[in-house]
Structures are given as C-alpha cells and as structure tokens.
C-alpha cells in the first residue's frame, strides 16, 4: 500500500517537474506570440486582439529587408557549408593520412572558441585582404563557423557505415561517381540534412560574427532587432518573430520526419 502511494507521488513529481521545464522553455515564446496580437503597444497587459501589427510589419520595409538578408545569408552559407562539410567528412572517413588527428582537433577549435574572437579574427582577415564588408563577407564568415557542425553530424552518420556497401556497388558496375551519388550520399542523407538544419539555424540567429563582418547597408534581422530594442521593442517585431517561430517549427518537423523515415529503413544494417 505504502509503496504504491510512494510510487504515485514519484510519478506525480516527475510529471510536475517536466511540466515546469517545458513551461520554462516555452512561456517566453508564448508571450511573444500573445503580444503580437495585443492592441496595446505597451507589453504589460493583454488588452484586446488585433492583426494590426502584422499589417504594420508588412509595411516596415527596413525590417523586412533585414529579414530577407538573413534568409539570403543563411541559405547561401548553408548550401556552401553543407557541400564542403560533407566532402570533408567523407574524405576524413575514407582516407587515412598523417596528421589526421590534428586536423580533427582543428575542427573543434572554431566550435569552442569564443565567438567574439572568431568575429574579430574574420574582420581583420577581411580588412587585411581588402574584402569589402557586406553580404558577401558575412556569407564567408558564416560558412567558416558552419562547416565543423556539418562535418560532425555527417561523420556521426558515417561511423556506422559499412565500406563494403560501396565495394558492392562498384562490383555491380557502378563507377566512383555513381557510387557516391547513388549509394553513399543517400545513405548518409539524414546526417547531411540534420547538419544543414543546424547550420541554417545557427546562421539565422547569429549576432556576434555578423556584427563584425557586416557592412553598413546589409544588416540582418537579429542585428536590426538589436538596434530596435534600444528604443523599446514594438509589437510588429513580435509579429515577425511569431512568423519565424512558426517557420522554424515547420522546418524542424520536416527534417525530423525525413531523418526518422530514413532511419527506420536502415536500422540494424
């Protein structure tokens, strides 16, 4: 009897605890969504429902422009980093060479180094070789910090990869390119997709590195918001944030489904 009650209490506490954790994680997001529909401009009380802020946001060209820049930078840098990172991961998996462990270590440095150091370093390189600051320089900067993340996720996927699968394809008449495009890449695709999603989100909300490497006319969404916050956040920023939250949710969902499907097919092989 007693024991059962104890178990019931245990079960309850763990439920309550998880609920609190989720509340902690999602309450701020809920507040943003809620206030994007608030008639009052001051974010203290919810006074009534309105879509005005969405309309206002649609008319705020500076905000939209910055958002467009963010998407552009994230899209292009993710594409470049994914290609480079995937090739690097495959090469490191496939070939043994001297100094491989040093190269390995070098990949971790950009991940653990304080971002501000990386930002300054990139800025000094750009000014050293006279690269004009703008979207281009920002894309290059984002690619640098994205690559290690792609390499890590792709390599994790490759660690269980049986090399004789590639041999088998070649044995059946596929040349090296067909082996890569028809066999290896499809098998490690879940790793590539999750690496790309991670890289994309890192790029979208990057502030520090973007701050150092951006030009005067190419501000990004996070930078723009930083600028706006100084004079108090207006609810049209909440409106755009709400749309971003929704979009993020959809992207994560889709990528999870893809990875899950691919995993289901290839378990235990």
């Amino acid at each position: 009897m007693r024991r059962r009650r104890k178990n019931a209490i245990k079960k309850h506490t763990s439920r309550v605890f998880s609920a609190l954790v989720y509340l902690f994680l999602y309450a701020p997001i809920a507040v943003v969504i809620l206030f994007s529909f608030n008639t009052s401009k001051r974010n203290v009380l919810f006074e009534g429902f309105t879509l005005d802020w969405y309309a206002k946001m649609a008319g705020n060209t500076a905000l939209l422009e910055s958002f467009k820049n963010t998407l552009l930078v994230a899209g292009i840098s993710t594409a470049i980093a994914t290609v480079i990172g995937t090739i690097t991961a495959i090469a490191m998996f496939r070939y043994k060479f001297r100094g491989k462990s040093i190269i390995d270590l070098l990949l971790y440095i950009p991940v653990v180094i304080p971002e501000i150091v990386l930002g300054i370093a990139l800025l000094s390189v750009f000014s050293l070789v006279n690269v004009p600051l703008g979207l281009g320089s920002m894309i290059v900067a984002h690619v640098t910090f994205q690559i290690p993340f792609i390499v890590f996720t792709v390599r994790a996927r490759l660690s269980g990869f049986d090399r004789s699968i590639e041999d088998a394809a070649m044995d059946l008449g596929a040349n090296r390119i067909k082996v890569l495009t028809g066999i290896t890449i499809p098998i490690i695709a879940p790793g590539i997709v999750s690496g790309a999603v991670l890289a994309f989100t890192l790029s979208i909300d990057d502030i520090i590195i973007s701050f150092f490497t951006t030009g005067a006319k190419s501000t990004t969404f996070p930078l723009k918001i930083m600028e706006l916050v100084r004079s108090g956040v207006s609810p049209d920023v909440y409106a755009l944030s709400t749309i971003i939250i929704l979009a993020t949710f959809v992207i994560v969902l889709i990528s999870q489904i893809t990875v899950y499907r691919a995993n289901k097919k290839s378990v235990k092989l």
Partner: protein
Amino acid sequence: MAKAIVEIKNVNKFYGDNHVVKDLNMEIAEGEFLSILGPSGCGKTTTLRMIAGFEQQTQGVITVEGERVENKEPFERNVNTVFQSYALFPHMNVTDNVAYGLKMKKVKKPEISERVENALSMVQLEGFGKRFPAQLSGGQRQRVAIARAIINNPRVLLLDEPLGALDMKLRKQMQIELKNLQKRLGITFVYVTHDQEEALTMSDRIAVMNDGVLEQIGVPADIYEKPATKFVADFIGETNIFEAIEVSADAAGQVALKSEIGEITGTDSEFSEGEIVYLSVRPEKTLLSAAPVSGYALRGTVRENIYIGTVTKTTVILQNGQEIRVANAAGSSVPEAGSALYVYWNPSDAVIIHSKSGKIIDAFENVDLSEYVEGSA
C-alpha cells in the same frame, strides 16, 4: 581439368611490411566449385579482393578469362562478389537491390523486371521485392545478396564466408541450396570459408591456405586422406601426428620409422633414409591392442572415453605425454579408463608428410640421432 578461367601466377601482396599473400599460384577451372579454406587472417579475403579488383597485388599476375586484369576497375571485371556482411543497400528495397547491376549496365526496364523476378524465385524470395533489407532475417538478406550477384550472369562468383553469420541449421540448408544453384547455373564459384566441414562437403576442389601460403590444392578426398603438409593434416579433421625419422623401407613400400618414444610403421613412396618426416593417422584408423604389435612401440594409458553418438572417442596418453585420439565405431568394445594398451595402425592408413625444411625437430633434442642424421635432406 577444364580450361582455367582464373589464373593466379606468383602473386604477392604486402600491406606495408606485412606480407599477407606469399607467392600464390592457383588455377581455377571453368565451372568448378573451389573453396579457399584456412584460419582467420591467412589471406583468404585478400586473395578474393585481388580477383575482384578491390585490392591490387604487389607482384604477380591475375588473369580472368585469359585477360590480365591489373588495370581493370572492379566495375570492369566480369566477376561478382557476395560479401561477408552481405553489403545490401539499406536505402533500397529488395527489387532495387537485385536490379542494381542491370541498371548500371543500362538493361531495358521490362527485361530488368523479368530477370529480377527470375533471380528472386531462384533464391526462393518471391514476394519479398517491396521489403527493405532491415525488414529481412539474416538468411533472407543472404539470399538477396546472392540474387543481386547472380542476376548479372558473372563468369565467376566470389563468395566471402557467405554463411558465416547464420545459425547451424540454416547454414546446412543454405550449403545445399548454394551447391545446387552452382550446379544449375554452371558458374564458377570461388568460396572462402574457415569451416573445413563446409569446404569438404561443398567443393569440387579445396585450396588450403595458411599464413599467406597455399599449402595444398586438391579434391576433398585427397586433402583429407593425403594431406601434403603438417598444417593440412592438422587443420582438416582430427589427426594424430608423430615426428619421426625414416629408417628403412621394404619392397612393398612399408617404412620403418623411429619416433621419440619408439618405432612406428607407415607407407611411403618417397622414402629417404634419415629424413625427418611427420606421420599422420586419423583417429578412426588408430587401433588399440592389449598385446604389443610388431613394428609399433607406443605404449599408453587410457585417460577417458567420450561417447558422442555414432562413435566413442578414447584418449590415450603415451609415455612421453603425447595425447592420442582413437575413435571406436559404435558397437565395438571400448577400453576401460586407466588400462594400459598399445597403439598401432595399419601401415597403409598412415600418411607420411615430408617436412619441407628437413630441420632437426625440437622433439628430438633428447634422442641420440647420430646414427640417422647423415644423409638427411
């Protein structure tokens, strides 16, 4: 022997300083079932991979259908491989796996689906086309791997321990199926295994390898009954081996030998006085007697009898500590444990193996050999 379809001439393979295939010479006849048998690490897989084109030999020549293949990529060679790990494509269903080779050769779609169906029925997997490898049992994956290889009508099929991961019962069944398939298709099979029983029951010929060296190649009966080296005698089946020096021979080829603990007798067509040889005699040919037998001076004590169904296995310890195994057919009388007996055999049942090195063997250290050593090879 039929025409050779694969020829391996003086092939050596080094991985760095590691010499893993040593001076290999082998001819594989068209249509035969050849097993490469040997312990793990002896170079079987490496040999197979050199034929398939995944590894390049360091020295020597390999020809397939009379053509040298060293400059051909794996996808240009008319051989196919069944891999030890099956190596199925996890992201493709069974049909796409099996069809892969034909797609690469740009065969027309209707022909592909017809041949896939054929291949699947040949390995008894009709109706499994839509499944993914992860949804199949080990035995079924094995069948897919075989279907995927034979659909291409290769002239030579290379199989690397294809049944290694299956349980005993399935293994036996697949052995029969594979052998039947090979007969039906008439494809040359090069079958790598470390299981001597499997090699003996399935093969037309067996190549026994040890430490990168081809020890013997021949039909199963010869490998079993006339092992050419000590390793082969030891590795194939159970055997009792004696180190001995050849002393004298009579006109019928019966040879008297001196072993560490006394004289023994065998038959040898290549008698050479004073040569150090190995004498190998199978447990089922080894006999026990209560009274001494002329020509044999092996006295021992029965340690134990183990009943294993069709036979009883008796272990006898000789005076020098050597263990001798004797297999008594069911129904024959079994000696009591602890009893003292004489070990002997029919001279024609003993195989004499001429030791290649001709070196004085360690076991003879304490024996006075002066009268025999002269004239040793």
